[in-house]
């Protein structure tokens, strides 16, 4: 298929034998039973699965928010499965951009400061961070709203701000967890178009967790999870959505 990644592109994500189980008291609940997954740079991947399939857990591990119980995870050539808290924070800051279902903007901050936050954690000065944040906001079409607070704009606009925030440190990967879950159809389309453009124009690797077939169709590759195992991994076009 033409949509499949070029074999020449190097791997951004390499998961091998990833297992994760949660321990509550004496009871161990396995969630992921050994996931092998390789994602190359510039890919646009949708991860689908029923609730309880382990897709959220996988997402957390991919986003370096959680560590696997077993298995290896190489991100950008770095073994991130066994990093310290501080090193993981740095990876989240530099390499990954998060987009959440609930937007997760900080309520009391003007939009520009919301977008500038990752830069501040990266060590940029306030002035520099604000300047770059304003530029990213302008890029996502919200240039005139910099001083507004999150509750003064619409949901779709808030998600654009969140996307601007995820882009501000120039990450290699964007992890979007149900990015259109709180949006209407028209707005969802706009957001997905934005992702598609970022993927195509800037070569940013996109990983979107969704349960909506319409959203998954924007991706080129589909990974389907069931009961903690990968049940399908191939072109979206070949999947029965």
């Amino acid at each position, binding site marked *: 298929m033409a949509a499949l990644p070029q074999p020449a592109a190097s791997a951004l994500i390499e998961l091998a034998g990833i297992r994760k189980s949660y321990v509550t008291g004496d009871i161990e609940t396995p969630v992921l039973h050994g996931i092998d997954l390789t994602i190359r740079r510039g890919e646009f991947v949708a991860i689908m699965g029923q609730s309880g399939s382990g897709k959220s857990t996988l997402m*957390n591990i991919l*986003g370096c*928010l*959680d560590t696997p119980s077993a298995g290896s995870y190489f991100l950008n050539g770095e073994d991130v499965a066994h990093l310290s*808290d*501080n090193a993981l*924070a*740095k990876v*989240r*800051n*530099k390499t990954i951009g*998060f987009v*959440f279902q609930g937007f*997760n903007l*900080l*309520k*009391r*901050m003007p939009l520009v400061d919301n977008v500038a*936050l*990752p830069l*501040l*954690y*990266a*060590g940029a*000065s*306030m002035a520099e961070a604000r300047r770059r944040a304003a530029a990213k906001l302008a890029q996502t079409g919200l240039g005139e709203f910099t001083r507004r607070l999150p509750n003064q704009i619409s949901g779709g606009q808030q998600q654009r701000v969140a996307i601007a*925030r995820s882009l501000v*440190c120039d990450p290699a990967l964007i992890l979007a967890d149900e990015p259109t879950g709180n949006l209407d159809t028209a707005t969802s389309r706009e957001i997905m178009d934005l992702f598609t453009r970022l993927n195509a124009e800037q070569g940013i690797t996109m990983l979107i967790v969704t349960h909506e077939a319409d959203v998954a169709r924007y991706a080129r590759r589909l990974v389907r999870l069931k009961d903690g195992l990968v049940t399908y991994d191939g072109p979206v076009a070949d999947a029965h959505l």
Partner: protein
Amino acid sequence: MSFWQVMIEAFRAMGMNRLRAGLTMLGIIIGVGAVVLMLAIGESVRTDINQRIAAMGSNLFIIFPGSSTSNGVRAGRGAAQTLTQADAQSLASIENVQYSAPILTQPFQVSAGNNNWNAMVYGVTPDYFSIKAWDTDLGSLFGEVEMRSLSRVAIVGRTTAQNLFGEMNPVGQTIRIRNKPFEIIGVLADKGSDLGGGDQDDAVFIPLSTARQQVIRTWFPGSVNMIMVQAASAERMKDVEYDITQTLRIRHRIREDQEDDFTVRDLSAIAEAAQGIATMLTLLLGAIGSISLIVGGIGIMNIMLVSVTERTREIGIRMALGAKRRDVLLQFLTEAIVICVCGGAVGVGVAYLGSIAITKFSPLAVGISPAGIAIAFTFSAIVGVFFGFYPARRAAGLRPVEALRYE
């Protein structure tokens, strides 16, 4: 994140919940205000006592005659008339004794024109004023010349002057003691009350020689009511006390097995006791203030814990965006410190107003020292760190996944 970014965040967080921040701050305001004001009050009490002690004269001994027994009835201390002017002179030659001043005293009805007033009349030598470090406001002191010539001159204290002459300048006026005219040559500076509460300014001083010859009759020639001895330094007090006792015992021909017929009182011991009380008072007041500051600090801890719980999701978001544990810790710690230091600033202001009010409505002059303010700020910052640390560490210890999932 830089210092200023963290500060901006802290103020923003406070701005989010103004009522809560204000109430939390109130605890610190009261605490810091109490500490500063209490310390200032303690300090002013101490200064007041020190001034009184200094006015009393430093490194001072007062020697009273012993008690007398006649027909089995024991009179009180000073009833015997065993101390003499000659004793005072020999005490003056003891090593490390600066001054030795014999004093003859008796209350008299003193009159000036149609006015009269009952005052203590003191027959003293010029050394007396040196010991007391006491000078005149108006006119001058008498000296050796007046002593030798038995001059009828008098120096009056402020209270006596006011009672006899009102607002008029008494210098050059005449008062009558025992119906003998004395010319007032000086009015002494205000000295205030002594540690016992007696008014030191209600007194008339005349040359000792004149007093003995013309005013105060004594049973024995040359006897005096008391002798004041000033030692050269505080370190020599013990030696001087011993020498005084030995000298007087020899002079009074007291046998080994007999008791002293005089009492040596060390006024510096009284002064030390008074200063000790002042120090204890300052400590006590400071402790009361500190307790309210600690209560305020616990208030901060309480609110910060609530705030950490409420903002769990925010902490998760920040961590997802790359905040390290240290960043989160610093953010919450700074919030606590900002509340404390802002509260501390207002608290100092409140204490300042309180000190003005106390100065106005009480005899104490309470002033807030820069040192007190510095102490208050340091304390409030320490309270912020101490009580902010636990909640901040709790925030920093959250796991990103769980924090993000928190509703």
